[in-house]
Every structure is written in structure tokens, then in C-alpha cells.
């Protein structure tokens, strides 16, 4: 009885080689994938680090302590600048000459007298008393305290001269100059003075714009999607509409701005820079996105649900409103929120309808002049004052916060209500 030694083919040398090659290919593919993710994360980390490292200081603002006497006569004249000056000069009795005093005045924000005015308006009983108040320092002092301006080097090329540095140092040493949380950044409208500038006006503008966008594009978008997906006959016309919707989703956003300029401003005579027009334009822009995502969500509801509902006697409308639409809702919401997030970050169409503008007053209504967050970021990035650099990054962080919140909500809703079949 002899045993044949012929190896079966899966034990052959060639087979082992092929197997090794296949394993190697899979390993290499995995490595390439990991590398891709690593590069992407690295870029993200670089971006975020650069924004955060430049911007975190903007959440603090140098404040100056001044002991002021609210003299009745001066309050009546609204001469708060004089009240402030007297208090400031009292801290530096040794500085009496005019140039020195002008230098001292430059330490305070040009908006500081208005802070005193606001204090008096809030509590008129302080008139006639002496109080210790904290007012904002000038943005140059603020930047110096944060270490952005050099202390050494030729005096003519420095933003702060020796006398000013000495005054700042003296105040820091006596505790009259500290950095505290920058509430102005969150409560004020725009300003040309960095220390008085805030994003609240832009946030309100963004919210008003999004409100209009949502109120228009969500009901119209969902209704259009439901009709096209559930009721519309399949013919040339619906095909044409579908192609057009897909096309519109890819149209550059500036085109919608031009359309808004021609139709809403030109034809309907709506005011420039108004959130209502911004919202209308954004609604046009997000509509195709919402329709497409809603149709995909409706498509993913299995036909068995519809058949079962129809089978027990529900009308087609009841089938849709009682069964299909609720089941598709998580998907629709996700698409909607992503569309809204895109609208929140958009500036190009707003350029045409005048929302890229310097607006100080916080808007109170849909037709007040307003701007939006990304536009505010763009305008600050364009401002020559150095203090706006950190504020730009801070505003970017706030915008990113909003976007993360919205996208997080989309993920949460999907996870919570998603059904799998």
C-alpha cells in the first residue's frame, strides 16, 4: 500500500504565496485607510488649534478700576467723560501736564463714558455719590496686557510708548487693571472699537434669518417631497421636476443672492439688509436639499408598511400621514438640520442683498437691518485693528459651537427615533 505524496493544491507553495499576497493587500488597504483618517484628523487638529490658540484670549477683556464721583451738575450735562477723567487723574497725581493726561485718557475705551451713563440710567440714586466702577480698557492696552504688543524695541515703532507702559504697569501692580470675562463680546452689536464689539447683533440676525428659512423651507420642502414620492404619477413632467431639483441643489449660492436682489428687493420692494429677505433667499437655497433628503427618507420606509395600511382600509393620505411620514421623520429632520446648518454658515447670497454691512444696533424685528454670524467673522477678519484678530477667532469658535450643536442634534434625533427593518 503506497501513499501518494502529491500535495493537494491548497498546500502548494504557489497557493501560500497567493494567500500571503491577499493578506498583505488587505493589511495595506487598512493602513492606507488609517493614514487617510490620521491626515484628516491632523488637519482638523491644526485648524482647531490655530483658531483656539489665537482666539481664547478674546474671552477676557482688560478692565480698569476708577473711583468716580457722580457730580449732579455733570450728570445733568451728560458730561460723563469729565467724570471719568477726574477719577482717572486722581489715580496719577504726579501726571499733570496735558500730554500725559491725554495719554491717560487713551488707556480707557472711548465707550467708557457710555458705561457710566448706563450705570446712572439703571440706578439714578448713585448721582451725588462716589463709587468704584470698572470700565473697559482701550483695545491697545488690552492687547498689550495679553502680550500681543512688544514691550521693547524702538519707541517710535511700538504701539505703546514708555509712558503708557509705565502707567499700565503701575495700574496692574495696584490691582486697578485686571482681565475679566468679556461679557461685551456676547451682549453688544458690532463696533469699530474692538473692545466694544460684540456678536449679539449677528447672532440675533442669524436666528431671525434661520427662523424665516425654516418656516418657509421645511413645510414646503416636506410637502413637495411627499407629493413627488407618494402621490405624483411617474411621467415626463415629474422627471423634469426631479432633474431640476437636483440641479438647483448644486447651483452656487451667489446665484440665489442675485435672484433675491432682482425679485425680493427689485420687484417686491423689500428693504435691503433685512433678515426677512435673507431668510427668503436662504429658504430658496435650502429647499432642494430638504426635498432631496426628505424623498430619500420616504423611500427608505418599506413598502410593506404602506401595503399593510392600505390593506386594512386606510386612505392613501392616511397611510402617508399616519404611518409613512412619522417613520421617515428622523431622516427628514436630519436633512433639514444639515440644510439649516449650511444656511447658518452662508455669506455669499447675503452679499447681494446688503446683509454684509456694518450694523451697530441689535435687530428687533424681521425688517430691521441685520447681519449674520459668518458675515461678522468676515468683517472682523478684514479690520485693521490687531484686537480684531483674536475676536475673529473667538467668533469662529462661537459659530463652530452653534454648528456642532445643530449637527449633534441631528445625530441625536436620528439615533433616538431611527427604525431599522
Amino acid at each position, binding site marked *: 500500500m503506497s501513499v501518494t505524496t502529491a500535495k493537494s493544491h491548497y498546500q502548494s507553495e504557489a497557493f501560500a504565496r497567493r494567500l500571503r499576497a491577499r493578506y498583505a493587500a488587505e493589511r495595506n488597504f487598512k493602513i492606507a485607510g488609517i493614514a487617510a483618517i490620521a491626515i484628516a484628523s491632523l488637519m482638523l487638529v491644526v485648524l482647531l488649534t490655530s483658531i483656539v490658540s489665537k482666539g481664547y484670549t478674546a474671552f477676557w477683556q482688560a478692565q480698569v478700576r476708577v473711583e468716580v464721583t457722580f457730580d449732579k451738575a455733570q450728570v445733568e450735562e451728560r458730561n460723563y467723560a469729565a467724570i471719568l477723567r477726574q477719577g482717572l487723574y486722581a489715580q496719577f497725581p504726579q501726571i499733570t501736564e496735558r500730554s500725559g493726561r491725554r495719554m491717560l485718557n487713551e488707556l480707557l475705551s472711548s465707550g467708557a463714558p457710555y458705561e457710566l451713563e448706563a450705570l446712572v440710567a439703571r440706578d439714578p440714586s448713585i448721582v451725588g455719590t462716589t463709587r468704584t466702577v470698572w470700565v473697559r480698557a482701550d483695545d491697545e492696552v488690552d492687547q498689550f496686557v495679553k502680550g500681543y504688543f512688544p514691550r521693547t524695541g524702538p519707541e517710535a515703532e511700538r504701539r505703546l510708548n514708555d509712558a503708557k507702559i509705565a502707567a499700565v504697569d503701575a495700574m496692574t501692580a495696584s490691582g486697578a487693571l485686571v482681565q475679566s470675562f468679556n461679557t461685551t463680546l456676547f451682549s453688544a452689536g458690532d463696533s469699530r472699537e474692538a473692545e466694544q464689539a460684540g456678536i449679539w447683533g449677528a447672532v440675533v440676525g442669524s436666528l431671525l434669518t434661520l427662523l424665516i428659512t425654516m418656516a418657509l423651507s421645511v413645510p414646503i420642502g416636506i410637502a413637495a417631497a411627499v407629493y413627488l414620492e407618494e402621490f405624483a404619477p411617474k411621467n415626463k413632467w415629474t422627471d423634469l421636476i426631479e432633474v431640476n431639483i437636483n440641479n438647483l441643489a448644486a447651483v452656487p449660492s451667489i446665484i440665489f443672492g442675485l435672484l433675491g436682489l432682482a425679485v425680493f428687493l427689485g420687484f417686491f420692494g423689500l*428693504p435691503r439688509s433685512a433678515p426677512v429677505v435673507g431668510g427668503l433667499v436662504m429658504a430658496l437655497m435650502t429647499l432642494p436639499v430638504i426635498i432631496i433628503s426628505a424623498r430619500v427618507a420616504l423611500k427608505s420606509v418599506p413598502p410593506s408598511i404602506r401595503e399593510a395600511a392600505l390593506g386594512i382600509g386606510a386612505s392613501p393620505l392616511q397611510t402617508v400621514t399616519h404611518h409613512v411620514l412619522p417613520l421617515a421623520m428622523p431622516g427628514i429632520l436630519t436633512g433639514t438640520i444639515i440644510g439649516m446648518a449650511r444656511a447658518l454658515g452662508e455669506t455669499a447670497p447675503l452679499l447681494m442683498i446688503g446683509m454684509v454691512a456694518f450694523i451697530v444696533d441689535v435687530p428687533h424685528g424681521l425688517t430691521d437691518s441685520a447681519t449674520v454670524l459668518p458675515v461678522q467673522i468676515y468683517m472682523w477678519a478684514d479690520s485693521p485693528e490687531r484686537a480684531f484678530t483674536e475676536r475673529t477667532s473667538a467668533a469662529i469658535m462661537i459659530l463652530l459651537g452653534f454648528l456642532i450643536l445643530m449637527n449633534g442634534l441631528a445625530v441625536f434625533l436620528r439615533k433616538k427615533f431611527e427604525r431599522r427593518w
Partner: protein
Amino acid sequence: MISRKHVFTAAAAVALSVAVTGGANAQSRDQIRAVGSSTVFPFTTAVAEAFGKGGKFKTPVVESTGTGGGLKLFCAGVGPSHPDIANASRRIKKSEVEQCAANGVTQITELKIGFDGIALAYSKKAPEVALTTAILWKALAKEVPVDGKLVANPYKKWSDIDPKLPNAEIEVLGPPPTSGTRDTFNELAMLEGCKKTPEVKAVVADEKAREKVCMTIREDGGYVEAGENDNLIVQKLNANPAAFGVFGYSYIEQNRDKLQSAKMDGVDLTAPNVASGKYELSRPLYVYVKNAHAGVIPGIREFIAEFTSERAVGDEGYLADKGLIPEPKDARDAARTSAVNLTPLQL
């Protein structure tokens, strides 16, 4: 069900409010609107803010649309839906005045508010450089005359043009063609520099063609269109000390600790040199006011009074802090008078 009903109610409410407020708003406006040059924008906004803090009127809305775009909007007609004020980094053109008149804007007040200087700036880390407009033109023109013929710009390094200049690649970061700064740069630097290069006249006889040759900037990498974001150019210049950037004066003022500006034909970029006209790369800035709106839109007279006041445009005014180079005293007084009287522009 309920939520769906709410959504539709909200949509209906929005549509209604749009219709109502839209109609109402087209008839009246209680906020001044200004449009125009991005160079004048920082000054107009500063005045707008100071004006708004006065408390009597709403803070004016200022849009940065560029000089040409701003004047187009300004000239589109009279009425609340058209802006009241146009900022310009050059004088209004005759064609624009005619366009205005055709749309019923016949009375315009011109206010010259001051000057802006254009700087050729470079990093503080680099040694001092003196340039002339002629050198600048040779460095940046698309075609230059060599041996009696126009050829594609052969100069790669500054030292190729003049051995005294640094042995470094020509790299100038500047604004794109859509920018007002670029227009001014073309007219003040390129055209002037070209005129000072006699060879060009010998090669291109026709005046129109010569102007085109003069103002065409090279596209082979010597001139980099760096976008409108000047802060980014500041960073790039810091990273590359051999590069130059084209800026407005206010940026140089704010970045004196990082940048220096090149002498132009031996003249430093300083406020007195600009105001006296010695420094060549400077331009006047204008504000145009629609007379028909004064008394209709509240606060226009008060706003331009603030704009021409000593505390704004004076030698130590707050606009000087923002980088505006003030006019001489008598010119300021003249501007104030025409602001008070709303003297119509005559071209």
C-alpha cells in the same frame, strides 16, 4: 397633527408679515444707509458709530460694496429704497454723474474727507529698501521693452533690474482686480512708473495701446493676487522677508511693529508727505451725499456735519487714529461749508 398645523400657521404668519412690513418699509426709512468703497468703509463706520452714540438718531448702516458698485446703487434713484450716501476712493466719473442725473439724482454734494496712502510694505526683518515707481513698473509689468522690443517680463530678481537692489525673487502680494486699491495702484504706481520709463514710448507709439501695456500686471508669479484679506498678507510678509505687500495706509499704521514701508522715489510714507502730495502713491477719499434725501431721511445733515467736524477729520480726530490722512486745515473748512450748505457738485 398639532405640530403640523403649527408649522402651516407659522408659514402663513411669515408670509403675511412679509407682505405687510414689506409694503410699509418701502415708504419710509429712519436709518441712514451708506454704500461704497471698502477703503472708506473703516472711516464711515467710525463716524456712523460716533453719530449713533449721540443718541438722537439710529446708527447708520454702512455697506462695503466697492466704489463702482456703490455709486451704481447710489445713482439708481431717489427714494427710501436707494442709499443716501456713497463712499468712493476716487472721484465720481462724468459717466456716473450722467447716470445719476438720468435716474433723477441731480443734486449731489461732494465731500473730500482726506487721503489714503498706498504702501509697498515688507517685513521688519529685511534691510531697508528704496524703490521708485519706474523700478516697480519694471518688476510688475507683464511686458517690458528690451532692446527696442516688447518682451515678456524677463526680470526674476530685484537685482536683475538694478544691481543695488536685493538679490531676491520678485514677489509682490497685492489686491485682486476687483479691488479699489488695485485700481489706484494701477493708476498711481504702474502708469506713473511706466511714464518714467522712456523706452516704452519708443516701442509703443499709440497712446491707448501704451496705456494698456503700462497697466497690465504680470501673471507669471511675480505678482500674487492675495485676496482682500490684508491681515493674511501681513502674516505672509512676516513668513517671507523678501516679499512685498500692497496695502492701504491704515494697515501699515496698525502693523508698524511688524512691517516697514519702502521709500518711493526717495519719499517716506508719512502723513505730512501724503497730504502735501510728495508721496506719489496716495489718493483722495470722497463721500457723496444725495441732496434730495436731506430732510427726508432723518439725520443726514447731522451725519455729514459729524463727518466733516474737527473731532472726526481733524489732525487729531478719531479718523486719524483709524489711519485717515487729514486734509490741510483750509480744505477741511471748505468741506465743512459745503456740508452745511449741501453745495451741489459741478463737474
